[in-house]
């Protein structure tokens, strides 16, 4: 039992010591997830861990057409893309994150321009 307890403590300590090799999830975004905003000039995402340059970010209008500037910038834990002046409507943000360790995650959310 003692060796099992030591093994358990080692694993939990290792697992909790660092998130350096975990999956990258969305921490928060600007515009905020589900928010209604005046026309933004860019969409920026803060992820839970560092990203590789292969990460992607797109902004789509209600018809599914990509409306961003296709100039995704990935910098450590953030990725951003510029957007032209957006008209009123609902926009979908699609992101695919490749974490620094190679783990892939993806997600979507919407924001509304008033």
């Amino acid at each position, binding site marked *: 039992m003692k060796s099992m307890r030591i093994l*358990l403590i080692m*694993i*939990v300590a*290792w*697992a*909790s010591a660092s*998130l350096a*090799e*975990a*999956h990258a*999830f*969305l921490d*928060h*975004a600007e515009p*905020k*997830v*589900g*928010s209604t905003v005046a026309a933004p000039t860019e969409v920026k995402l803060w992820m*839970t861990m560092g990203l590789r340059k292969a990460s992607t970010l797109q902004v789509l209008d209600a018809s599914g057409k990509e409306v961003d500037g296709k100039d995704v910038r990935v910098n450590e834990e953030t990725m951003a893309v510029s957007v032209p002046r957006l008209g009123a409507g609902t926009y979908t943000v699609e992101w695919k994150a490749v974490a620094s*360790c*190679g*783990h*892939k*995650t*993806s*997600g*979507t*959310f919407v924001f509304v321009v008033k």
Partner: protein
Amino acid sequence: MAVIAFHSLTNKLQAHGFEGDRFFPPTPTTDDPFATDEFAMPTFSFFNTPASADGTEPKTHQIDLSTEFDKEIFPKFSLGVTVTYIFLKPEGQLGTSGFDNLSFSAKYQVLESAKHEFILSVGGEIDLGGSGSKLIGAESYSTYTPMFYYGKGFGDLPNALKYLKPFAVTGTLGYAIPGEAGNADGSLNPDTLQWAFALEYSVPYLQQHVEEVEWLKPFQNWIPLVEFQMNTPVNRGNGFTTGTINPGVLYEGGRFQIGAEAQIPVNGSTGPNVGAVFQVQIFIDDIFPKVFGHPIFFNKDDEK
């Protein structure tokens, strides 16, 4: 239909249970539908078994300590093993302990829809008779349980119901067939329908995909849930449905997940006492990404 497709090869490093935007966390008492690498260590369960009606068996305190390991063998197919050590302390008697029978499982993901956050898997479990200790009452016969596993997230609800989108359910439906119909003492071993499900409300899903709610920020890694674990005998004298309702919460910690639940008996046939279960789930694909998180055979990355 394109949205529901039979599987092609899996993506590397997707050992977590994702379907579209949805992350289905492994839950303490309901097996999830994903055939991925998983390592639950440990799962502690505490509960008290009431004294038998005829007084021959005293009230017993029981602690189960179990470990489950699952490995994806080829894309969408995994094999697993569960080892459980049981401590028993009957009131007024000396305690005893020992291993329960080994349990082996197999699972294959047959249907998925990322758009509808849906997954269906088939598989089964074998409880290997005689592999455990007689001291703790491990059966001498094997039990075979073919099973369905499913998961459904509600992210495809209309926006008018957006606050319901974080809800998800995972469940299992199995038919347990004991290898022996009866025991030496004349008691019968009925086949049982094993049905279980977990209903969860994912705060991470709400924050990441529906609406960032400022006051929920401190809880953005928490998933409240309630699990239902039921057994219904179907032959050999039948008997009553027994089971527990388990309200609790999960905490997502990056490389690990912690879960804690109460276990509330659904009826008098189950027992009068509330138990508890506590589980640490290690995401081994995060800790050992080169070893876990991809199948042993037909790994898509190996083809590159």
